[in-house]
């Protein structure tokens, strides 16, 4: 059995960090103290970066080629077996990819449309910090809390939303316990949480558009809709592209809401019938429920590659969307 943990964990982390840049290698550039000074400024963050980002990243890559498991804390190198398994005989992996893609799609569409609408409204109507603040409120809440709030409100039997729908003779709708409803429900919840935040980003972009353009447009007799199409959208493209990058990368990584709100009572999260088992959850379950760290790491490698591809494509879009307020 181990001795008690050292009281200050940083010391352990420092001790565990094998690399210190050799200062002699870095000659000071002219007129500056160079690494001699920078080293001390960078030391803590370097340790953090190496210990919790760089080395784990490489280690994660290695684990993907092993059959590591957490309880026994051991594993051996098995080459490409994990990848073969997920590509060829794991329908559940493909299911989680499908579920994730569906979720990402729904989330992007609903969030973008809502946020742009809200931002344009705010831009036209009010600059009040109260309005902007209230919209930001959901975004500041932990996902867990958001999930619980909506789990309660959307409950098939007791939820207020179903009371409300019942008032109009609809329902009761099983939001979380129906295979077709569960992903749209989760997408809706996360849209609720993010819409104010995203609207603020877009609002900031709108503020940079010179008002003179609209005035000129109005003089030309353009309608609101025409101006929105010909002025707002083109000038907003960089901000929109940024928002899309954030939203897509974020929605690929949805986890908390699914983990807390799905599966019903004593069911596995990701239910019903795996209809909401997103890729993040599947990685998590492989690592910690099925005790198959190696396989989980392999799936996360695939996810990283996927995200890289998405990001690169979007960076292209970003560049393509550079707008000049000429």
């Amino acid at each position, binding site marked *: 059995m*181990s001795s008690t*943990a050292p009281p*200050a*964990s940083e010391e352990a*982390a420092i001790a565990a960090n094998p690399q210190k840049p050799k200062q002699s290698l*870095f000659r000071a*550039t002219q007129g*500056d103290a*160079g*690494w001699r*000074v920078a080293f001390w*400024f960078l030391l*803590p*963050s370097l340790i*953090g*970066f190496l210990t*919790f*980002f760089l*080395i*784990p990243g490489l*280690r994660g890559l290695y684990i993907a080629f092993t059959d590591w498991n957490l309880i026994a*804390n051991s594993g051996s190198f098995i080459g490409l077996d994990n990848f073969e398994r997920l590509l060829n005989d794991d329908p559940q992996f493909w299911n989680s990819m499908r579920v994730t893609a569906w979720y990402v799609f729904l989330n992007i569409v609903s969030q973008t449309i809502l946020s742009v609408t*809200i931002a344009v409204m705010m831009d*036209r*109507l*009010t600059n009040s910090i109260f309005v*902007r*603040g209230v*919209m*930001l*409120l*959901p975004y*500041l*809440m*932990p*996902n867990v*809390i958001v999930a*619980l709030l*909506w789990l*309660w409100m959307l409950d098939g039997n*007791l939820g207020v939303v179903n009371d409300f729908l019942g008032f109009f003779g609809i329902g009761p709708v099983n939001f979380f316990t129906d295979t077709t409803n569960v992903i749209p429900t989760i997408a809706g919840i996360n849209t609720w949480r993010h819409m*104010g935040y995203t609207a*603020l*980003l*877009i*609002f*900031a972009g709108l*503020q940079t558009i010179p008002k003179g353009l609209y*005035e000129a447009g*109005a003089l030309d007799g353009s309608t609101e809709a025409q101006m929105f199409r010909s002025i707002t959208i083109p000038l907003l493209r960089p901000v929109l592209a940024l*928002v899309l990058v954030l939203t897509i990368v974020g929605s690929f990584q949805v*986890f*908390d809401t699914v*983990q807390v709100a799905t599966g019903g009572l004593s069911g596995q999260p990701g239910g019903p019938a795996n209809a909401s088992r997103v890729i993040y959850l599947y990685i*998590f379950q492989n*690592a910690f429920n099925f005790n198959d*760290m190696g396989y989980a*790491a392999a799936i996360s490698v695939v*996810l*990283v590659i996927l995200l890289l591809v998405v990001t690169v494509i979007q960076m292209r879009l970003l560049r393509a969307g550079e707008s000049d307020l000429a």
Partner: protein
Amino acid sequence: MSTDTTPKAAGKLEGAAGDDSPAPAARVGRVAAWTFLIFIIVISIFPFYWALRTGLSNNGVLLSGDGSFLPPDASLINFQRVLGLLSAEEAAEFRGTGSFDFGRALRNSIIIATCVTFFQVAFSAMAAYAFARLKFTGRDKLFNLYLAGLMVPPIFVLIPNVILIRDLNLLNTLPGVMAPFLLMTPFAVFFLRQFFLGINRSIEEAALLDGAGHGRTFFEIILPMAAPQITTLAVLTYVQSWNEYLWPLVVAGDPEVQPLTVALGVFTTQQPGTSPDWSALMAATLLAALPVLILFAFTARRLVDSIQFSGIK
């Protein structure tokens, strides 16, 4: 809720013509737009109200499905229950609610968020200063490497980090829950570097000429000048560590060190086969949201502005 739907004419819609009354069509548009905005605001707030209403009612009433707008039989008992303020015999009525020790989880959340915020911001600020102001070989390469860290999804390093924390013997300890966020995050370094780059160099240079070292310059000039931005980052970091779920879920199995987010999640699954203790759960949920709400009340303007700023740059 009564809301005054007559906006002060912000004068944004009307063009240069400066007309006194907008065209009827525009007025209809405005009313529709305001209605939409108010609807969004209500939707943003309503769940919190509903949680409050639920927390003030008792489970029996909830199960009978009373959908009234106000709590049917308001009492603070659930809040007292969650906060452990009930006497033993009062508490005995609520058998089977599981062991949810709100005070303990709150304490853990506060410790984790406070420590993480303080160290992460301090160390990231130091790194940001080096990247913004010092010249050294490989500076930009290193900075880009940091930026690449932004691209790595947390789940990818989660597994190796769990093994690392395990090897350091820190699983199920508070330092273990804090460790990955304690020294830096790429975002924090990036965020502050942007600001430091924008600070006027002349004051610094004067100080450096006077023989002050970089350390003193950093502490006495840069930090005070960047205080608003550092505060902003601190608030963002605090909120983020307060909201963190996946990492503590994995490394803090022991209730002794679980933060609120994890403890709340666990509380829902206490008794298989029976529905969650909704009124207590909602009371706990609101209480858990409270610190962030308070923080927000004091820093709303700054937060809103900083988020808008990150949108423009």
